[in-house]
């Protein structure tokens, strides 16, 4: 019996019992669309996490921080703790060829209340001030939008200069002026702990691709702004910045200045003494080859142990752990998503089994007739199996069609979540699973139908 006829027959059966078929398909539709929707949201989250990994310097970046807690066997040496110092930087530069771009950082954060950034009565809510070398621009993956980075000479002379992020600008200057133009803070003066600093540059505004698109759109709409629109725009940019906060928040809210400036002008604990022994918040550096991460770490460790006289008063922070976390989070979401969608599909499949079984007991006589005029067991088997596959695949296709709408609706209702990304792969997988469900669900009824005794079947009322 030729396949086309069987498939057409399957559609005929669906049409003949359209309501029942629709109910049956509903299970598959739910399964497929939830599978696709789930994976779209997981994919969205995955992209966001990966972006934030790249934002923090990627896997090549490693950081060494001071550690107050010594290992047990060194506890008695606690008085000797110095933490990481500039000496370490030079030692690494000379002795650790597996790493480069070794940069010292001294951090100050506004929420520790030893940092106040102000200008004309305005202040920032959260700011991270970092004193460092000009090299930091590269290792922190910063890009200058306006002005320039401070120079080595300015570091050497401890000039009062700084480079600020867009959030700092927004807090102190506002984002737009009266004409709707973005404000350029370069060459303005801001006050950090009541001391004047000249802004020599501003970083570009870091945001996710999604936010950038939205912002551009909003900008376009705002070319013909009136006052009323303004309000909505501000509201928009507010929720926008909230979203961006998650990934790029700290980056946009940072101020960079020369290390020497920060230490000599702003550090209250500044003592005169060897510049080399000045303690740092952290050292950050890049490794040449991620596959040599272990070796590079060991090399850095060896060098540092020597400069620290054997004291392990430092610890490493690599992005590897973060990357592992990301992978684990993605894996967990995927698994739980697949699990839920799988249950939906299972329920859909059971629905099909149920309907096919009941439709078979309705059609025992038909099967008897077909057998008496020459249908083989295989013919009957194929017929029933095809019907359930047609049912499942139709459901699968409807699920595919529905899923983009479902995703859009869910994304609308939950605007704070990461933007979902619909992938072709997930659609293919969803569709394949619906076909598999249909085939599996059709097996039992088809087998049962094919084994019917034609005489019994013909007698059946």
């Amino acid at each position: 019996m030729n396949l086309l006829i069987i498939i057409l027959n399957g559609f005929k059966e669906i049409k003949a019992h359209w309501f029942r078929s629709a109910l049956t398909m509903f299970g598959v539709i739910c399964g497929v669309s939830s599978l696709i929707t789930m994976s779209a949201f997981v994919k969205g989250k995955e992209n966001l996490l990966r972006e934030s990994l790249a934002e923090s310097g990627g896997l090549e970046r490693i950081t060494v921080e001071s550690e107050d807690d010594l290992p047990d066997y060194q506890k008695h040496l606690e008085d000797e703790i110095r933490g990481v110092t500039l000496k370490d930087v030079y030692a690494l530069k000379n002795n650790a060829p597996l790493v480069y771009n070794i940069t010292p950082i001294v951090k100050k954060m506004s929420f520790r209340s030893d940092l106040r950034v102000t200008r004309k009565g305005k202040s920032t809510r959260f700011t991270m001030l970092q004193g460092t070398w000009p090299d930091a621009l590269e290792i922190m993956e910063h890009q200058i939008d306006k002005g320039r980075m401070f120079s080595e000479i300015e570091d050497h002379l401890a000039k009062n200069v700084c480079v600020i992020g867009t959030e700092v600008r927004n807090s102190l200057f506002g984002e737009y002026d009266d004409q709707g133009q973005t404000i350029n803070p370069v060459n303005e003066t801001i006050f950090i702990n009541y001391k004047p600093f000249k802004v020599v540059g501003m970083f570009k505004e870091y945001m996710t691709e999604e936010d950038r698109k939205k912002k551009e759109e909003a900008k376009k709409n705002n070319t013909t702004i009136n006052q009323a629109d303004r309000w909505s725009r501000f509201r928009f940019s507010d929720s926008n910045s909230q979203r961006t906060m998650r990934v790029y928040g700290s980056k946009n809210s940072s101020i960079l200045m020369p290390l020497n400036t920060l230490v000599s002008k702003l550090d209250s604990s500044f003592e005169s003494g060897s510049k080399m022994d000045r303690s740092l918040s952290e050292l950050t550096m890049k490794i040449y080859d991620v596959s040599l991460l272990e070796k590079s770490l060991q090399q850095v460790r060896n060098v540092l142990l020597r400069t620290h006289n054997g004291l392990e008063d430092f610890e490493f922070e690599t992005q590897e752990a973060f990357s592992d976390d990301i992978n684990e989070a993605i894996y967990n979401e995927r698994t739980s998503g697949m699990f839920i969608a799988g249950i939906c599909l299972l329920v859909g499949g059971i629905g099909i089994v149920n309907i096919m079984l009941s439709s078979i007991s309705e059609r025992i006589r038909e099967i008897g007739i077909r057998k008496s005029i020459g249908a083989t067991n295989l013919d009957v088997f194929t017929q029933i199996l095809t019907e359930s596959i047609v049912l499942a695949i139709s459901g699968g296709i409807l699920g595919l069609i529905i899923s983009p709408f479902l995703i859009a609706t869910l994304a609308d209702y939950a605007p704070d979540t990461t933007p979902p990304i619909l992938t072709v792969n997930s659609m293919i997988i969803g569709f394949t699973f619906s076909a598999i469900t249909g085939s599996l669900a059709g097996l039992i009824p088809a087998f049962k139908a094919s084994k019917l005794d034609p005489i019994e079947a013909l007698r059946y009322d």
Partner: protein
Amino acid sequence: MHLLELRDIHKTYHLGGETIRALDGVSLDIDSGEFISIIGPSGSGKSTLMHIIGCLDSPTTGTINLDGVMIHDASARQLASIRNKKIGFVFQFFNLLPKLTVRQNVELPMIYTGLSSKERKQRAMCALEEVNMEDRSKHRPSQLSGGQQQRTAIARALVNNPKIIFADEPTGNLDSNTGEKILQMFDKLHTEGKTVMLVTHDPEIAAVTPRRIEIRDGKIANEIDPKLSGQAPRFNIG
């Protein structure tokens, strides 16, 4: 050589520890072109006999040779193929598929034979012409009278040009007038050279066939065969 040769057919069922001998040593020869009726009260085993000859069932013991094929030990697949190509069934309850049109019903056996749609259509229309149903080809069974439905069923039985046509109480669900017409149709098929076997409990219906075989308790109780000269009809109409 006969078209159909049955030798010592036994069929026993086991129902709850009880053994039922539905057929108890039936031997029978049928030639091509014969018009036969199998007669017997219900429970006599005539239906079982028809099912076994019709390849819907297999005998417990005994041999059957249908058109040179030993069907008593054929596989289910072979039996399906024989039912499809060599046997046509006409049932008491017509057994048409209600969702298909008359023509689609007649085409059904040829779908399992694997003929092209063009050929199926052509042959279905020929068969419908044979039973004067060509103008109803697009109707559904529910839109037809009992006689018309039975004629459709006959067209379906004929369409694959079978060696033998079985009719199981073909008039059982029809009024006597329509039943008469259906019987005339079988007679016509017989005169055209087809082999037809009627299965009935009604001696009056059996009377239209030249050869009559009476089954009782799973055995051939009586046989009237015009070929066997000198044998008097010994019908026992109770």
